[in-house]
């Protein structure tokens, strides 16, 4: 019944994250999974459960990348990205949209809203991490 988050990234990485990622997704399991992946890879991760909360956090602290789901209550991923692209402080931050939607219209809409890349769920962890590495400018050792 007890839930603990394990982070096994080397201590140095936790203190000095490679980049800060904001995950905006309404599914706890997906957030938990992504944040575990990213934290193990040395990123600092924040989570928001919908676009509105995501926007609130994005305005409070600096992020290097948004990882955004589409279907969420209150404010969906499209609306979140549209707001981000409208805001002078946020518009230069890249965003990956990640959803189970596979229809062409959804993906087109994602790019129209301001996404820089689209990944489909189920999440391919290797592809996901590689994408995050590339988009945040993380160099290979």
């Amino acid at each position, binding site marked *: 019944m007890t839930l603990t988050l394990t982070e096994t990234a080397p201590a140095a990485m936790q203190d000095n994250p490679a980049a800060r990622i904001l995950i905006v997704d309404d599914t706890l399991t997906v957030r938990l999974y992504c944040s575990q992946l990213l934290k193990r890879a040395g990123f600092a991760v924040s989570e928001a459960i919908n676009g509105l909360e995501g926007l609130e956090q994005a305005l409070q602290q600096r992020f290097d990348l948004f990882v955004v789901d589409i279907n969420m209550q209150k404010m969906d991923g499209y609306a979140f990205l549209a707001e981000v692209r409208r805001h002078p402080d946020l518009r230069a931050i890249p965003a990956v949209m990640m959803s189970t939607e596979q229809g062409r219209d959804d993906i087109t809409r994602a790019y129209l809203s301001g996404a820089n890349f689209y990944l489909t769920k189920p999440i391919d962890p290797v592809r996901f991490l590689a994408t995050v*590495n590339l988009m945040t400018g993380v160099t290979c050792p």
Partner: protein
Amino acid sequence: MPLRSNLPPTPAEIAAQAAETADLAASFVEEARALLEEANAALLTLERNPGDAEAVNALFRCVHSIKGAAGLFDLPALIHLVHAAEDLLGAMREGRLRIDGELADALLAGLDRVATWIERFRSEGDLPAGSIEEARKFAALYRARLDGLDGATQVAEATARADAPPAWAQGAASAIAAAAPDAASVVLADYAPDEGCFFAGEDPLRLVLATPGLCWLEIVPAQDWPDAQAFDPFACNLRFRMAARAPRDAIEHHFRYVPDNVMLIEADVESLAADAPKDGDGDGGAPVGLPTLAIELLETQARALDLPGRHGQVGDIETTVRNLCRALDLPCPLVDGPADADSLATAIAHLLRSGARKDPAEEAAVAGAAPMIAPMGDGAPDRAEATGERTLRVEQGKVDTLMNLVGELTVAKNALPFLARDAEVRFGSRELSREIKDKYAVIDRIARQLQNAVMDIRMMPVSDLFKRFPRLVRDIARKQDKKVRLVIEGETTEADKNIIEALAEPLTHVLRNSLDHGIEPAQARITAGKAEIATLRLCAFQDGDSVVIEVIDDGRGIDPDKVRAKAVERGLLDAERAAQLSDAQAMQLVFLPGFSTAEAISDLSGRGVGMDAVRTVVERFGGQVTLDSRPGHGTTVQMKLPLSMAVTRVLTVEMAGQLYGVPMDLVVETVRIEPQAIRRFKASEAVVLRDQVVPIARLRTMLAMEEHRPALESVLILRVANALIGLVIDDFGTGMDIILKPFSGILTNLSGFSGTAVLGDGRVLLVLNLKEIL
């Protein structure tokens, strides 16, 4: 050579670790359960009110979230099922389809199946054999409803499955046989990816090349190539036909995310016949060796530049391009300072032409790169903080331990009054005695607060129990063709977790009784001049130290004469006694073991357990159950249970110098009466108390002690099973809180006592089980 452990983990390693985390699976199971419950509730709401857009959205969101989370695990069947359900709900959301009873049944059945799979996944870590077939059945059921709708997703012809080898395989028979010379049979697969699959991030060729045991492959256009002007480079127009030497299961598993696009047939190699030699690709899985992800990313940015609505805002694209160069250690073709769309387009084109193409080894390195640079200050905010969660999950065992300790504390503190008396009587220090009493008052108060606080942790709203009933009521009502409206009231009322959990079964039984025997079919109700739709109320409220749960129906009620007759027929009592019972008393006969008023035993409630089972459970938790009914108007079953069960308040009574405990909740009052006020009626005794005749029982007789006739009789007036009874004892003691310990070992079967408690001065108190004695 550096030690592996010194290197940062590769994404693949990280992924493997993350997927193995039990936390994630546990989180998924818990979240999926909650989502399923929510989905069930939304579905029921929707069925009642088919136009409820809010409910459709909620339902869609739940199913969608389950699908998203399930994708993290290897659960193809589950995903296939929820995917189909999601398509159906999508059509509903767009208003192309309306809910009806049949559709609700199909969706509920699907959700149930998913629920059992989730439980199986929790215990076994996988899904049962045959789950894929079952998922297909559900998917077909759902698709059948979508077919024929305007603009509905047409089922790919590929889902049609034939047994005979397809024409293309027969045509390529010799090539296939040559590629699999020593195999008896091969699996033939025909894979037709969706036209828009590239947009879904699928890579059909890569998937095909990684097919286990792939030995023969043919790629053909799905449709004739159109002329250059109509050609859409983003549409997949390919069809893959292959033969593989691997078990069918393995192939099925390999294509588990695109089951609708693949047709599999197992074929006998000999029957395909052979002579032409052709080299096969052994076990397949050729890696694609280009930095495809970087190219993909760059191409996507180039396309994004041209999208309408950008209005020259390209900061994010610029960041992406610069970061990509940094990650790949490429010189960035962009000059310093903000870039415009044109310079970005040029830079991307340049990168695509030259730098980005690297060899596979380096591609692997990119994929394997863990971030090493370290900008910026403090760490990420705590997860709980980020998501606004304010709850703490604790194992129940820990709370139980805490509760036991509080219990011990309560007992231990009770030693202080004894100590105070000793101080005064034995040591003659009145001052010390008062001091001890003062301190006792403080400790007592704190102990009480602590007890309340711990008890509060164990308190749960009854809604956790009630929320399962809308579905139950709906299903039974539907099955029996009755129209029922379930009204739930007071669901925020709280009670001890154990009590709530123990009530599930009896409450289910009472509800089923109402639905089976109480509520009439719609037609009968109309004939009787009642509302067509019956009302079933499920209410909870707090009453002092008790929680009361009532099930009230407006059905046909219980005929007391029928109850009397049935009880006599069952030999539960003789006809004469039965006739003497008041109607209200007769009703209570249904609680006797072996009683059932059902004319025909239904498959739902006639399972051998009757109201006596309900009574047993309720009484085990120190509660009472009563039934009240008006023929033709309905029945009310009331269950009254203590709010918490850890600490019991008893009144001590003295018997021949021994102390016994009587549960305080049974005690109505204590009286002292003159012996002659007790009158004899044949073998029994009674006393008239404020114009009410109260039967008398003597505890000495019951405990087989010798008789004792004092000048004044001490009588405890008790309410047992809704009737008053006077219990003659030697003397009254005081009331106290005790931790009741049930008997264990060879004393378990000792009747007449419900357990023991240790007193503050070390004496053992036997607590009487009066319901049993009387």
